[in-house]
């Protein structure tokens, strides 16, 4: 009661504060009533989630959220983004401030056990080394005695030590206390290699080198993180909706359905494709969505491959290779589940 009185006082004090009642019921009802899906976004990670010059959010994580908005409303712009810091993102999801958290979030046991549910991985990430192509080094085993520019306090610092000890490489870590200094040191030749997340390496190579083709990137170890959008515990229908919105993107690529050819595919004889596109009804209704939800997603955003290329892959400035993010049928880890 005291808390509520305090709340009212706080409300009166500032018109900027708006109180919204969070329903205990399913997230889908809340989202429909609000008219938009609210997603957590990063504070600007190019390729994954960042506003462009016009303030329009773009990136792989952002488009995952847009896919859910399409599934529910048939409109990719019915998604809103709340920029969150790394520490804020999970509480924001737990308290109902956001509906989905697609924000380069690694699927870990502790997070999974403590109040959030992970959906489907949208990006597999590894820690990588970048070296000059002229050095002839192409894998970790070649790196004996190399000096490595590394940022202090990061998990990559641990990786350098682990790799060096395990493979007896005698790597010399050259430690810097901020990202910019680390990168500058590498490009000015202060060290032989630069270590950080592979996607970050790709963006550094694209933006800060004079010629991106002069550098190669390879994995530092065999471990990989699955970046996965998460939802709150306790709403299974919502978990399903997010899961199958992502699955729609993956399945479309498997079936060869693209943004360009989707309308031709409507007349396909393949029963799987028919069920996917909602020509044969059932899939959407089971989730509480429109039967055409998968059609709408691909029509507006393309399949996973197109989304990848546009945001982080070949058609983006980052030029990240598909690598582990290829479909299983191409030798990658992306596994579309049976869509029926």
């Amino acid at each position, binding site marked *: 009661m005291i*808390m*509520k009185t305090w*709340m009212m006082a*706080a409300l009166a*004090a*500032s*018109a*900027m*504060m*708006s*109180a*919204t*009642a*969070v*329903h*205990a019921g399913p997230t889908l009802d809340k989202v429909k009533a609000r008219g938009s899906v*609210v997603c957590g976004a990063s*504070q*600007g*990670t*190019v*390729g994954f989630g*960042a*506003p462009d*010059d*016009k*303030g329009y*959010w773009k990136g792989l994580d952002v488009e995952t959220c847009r896919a859910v908005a399409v599934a529910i409303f048939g409109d990719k712009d019915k998604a*809103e*983004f*709340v*920029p*969150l*810091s790394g*520490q*804020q993102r999970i*509480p*924001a999801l*737990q*308290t*109902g*401030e956001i509906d989905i958290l697609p924000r380069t979030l690694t699927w870990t046991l502790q997070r999974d056990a403590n109040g959030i549910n992970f959906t489907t991985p949208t990006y597999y990430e590894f820690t990588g080394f970048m070296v000059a192509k002229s050095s002839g080094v192409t894998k970790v085993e070649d790196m004996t005695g190399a000096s490595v520019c590394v940022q202090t306090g990061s998990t990559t610092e641990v990786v350098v030590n682990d790799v060096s000890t395990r493979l007896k490489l005698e790597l010399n870590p050259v430690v810097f206390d901020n990202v*910019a200094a680390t990168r500058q040191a590498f490009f000015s030749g202060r060290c032989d290699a630069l270590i950080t997340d592979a996607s970050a390496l790709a*963006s550094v190579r*694209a*933006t*800060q080198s*004079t010629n991106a083709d002069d550098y190669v990137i390879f994995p530092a170890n065999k471990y990989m993180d699955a970046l996965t959008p998460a939802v709150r515990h306790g709403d299974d229908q919502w978990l399903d909706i997010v899961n199958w919105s992502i699955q729609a993107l993956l399945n479309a690529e498997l079936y060869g359905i693209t943004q360009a050819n989707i309308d031709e595919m409507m007349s396909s004889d393949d029963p799987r494709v028919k069920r996917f596109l909602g020509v044969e009804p059932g899939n959407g209704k089971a989730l509480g969505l429109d039967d055409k939800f998968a059609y709408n997603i691909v029509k507006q955003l393309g399949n996973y491959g197109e989304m990848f290329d546009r945001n982080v892959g070949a058609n*983006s*400035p*980052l030029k990240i290779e598909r690598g582990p993010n290829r479909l299983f049928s191409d030798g990658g880890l992306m596994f579309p589940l049976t869509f029926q």
Partner: protein
Amino acid sequence: MSTLNMDAVGALPNPSLPPRRTRKSFVQLLFGDLVSACLTVAVGALLLSMVPVLNWAVFDAIWTTNDPAACSQGGACWAFIVAKFRFIIFGTYPPDEQWRPLLVMGIILAMILGSLSPRLWGARLIYLWVFAVVVMLVLMAGGVFGLEPVSTSKWGGLPITLLLALLSLGLGFPFAIFLALGRRSNLPIARMLSVLTIELVRGLPLVGLLFVASILLPLLLPAGWSIDKLGRTLAALTIFAAAYLAEVIRGGLQGVPSGQVEAAKALGIPGWKAVAHIVLPQALQKVIPPLTNTAIVMVKNTSLVLIVGVFDMLSASRVAATDPMWPAPFVESYVFVALIYFVICFGISHYARWLESRVQARSYR
């Protein structure tokens, strides 16, 4: 300096004549004695070392280009600021509705210019400010009068910086007065509460307070309630501003001689009237410089909200600089944002000096 004054005094046979100043030659001024000579050489060396900076900032700089790649030549890339100007100033606010934050900034400027002269200060001006703030919030948020609703997660850039600074100081000030009066009051509970609040908030770094507001508060609120993120941030800034302002005001209160209150009592003026009309005006006049200081600190403190994900001007410029099309012009964007902060803070301190001299002139009259 002292010799100069002595000369001036000695050369004043007729007070109606302007004082005659003896001028030192330029060379004498720079190399007159050992200390000046050393200082001149040191400053000269410093200026000389600035030449590369000047080269970078002006002569080698690229001012306009449509091709981001042209910017990787070594000079400053001001073309980047030109290209990203809209984003840094307005953040993620929808471009079609951009006139609204622009108007808000106009209102802020007009209101500030209109409230500069102490002659206009009064209850009417306070009402006008309250009205202006409501108008500004309605303009930003929309949803009424046919304005498209824009959620606070899309607000950004300079309007956020200005609104947060203005509202945290404006809302914090009345709280600060109560806290300051409470701390000097004879009522033990009021005194203890005030001391506790002030010391607790002052003992916490603002960053900690922002984290509490943005992460802990939503978890502590009863289920079914959530306060807007920007509102929570504003609440943290307001509490912070209130605690610091309270201590400044308390300093002023201590400077008011107790005879003033006693005289008021003797004349039969009720206690609260004595405080409002006799003690507070005198107390606030005394603390204009530290109040200015707190105001400037609060304006700059708003940049800390970037750690809780509010898109103020600084976060917007950082995001702008990560655009892979441009060769990472972090320095240029920081310099640009620093310039804006400087203009705001310099303006405040200049105004405070003017206000101080006015108040002094009046009290000598």
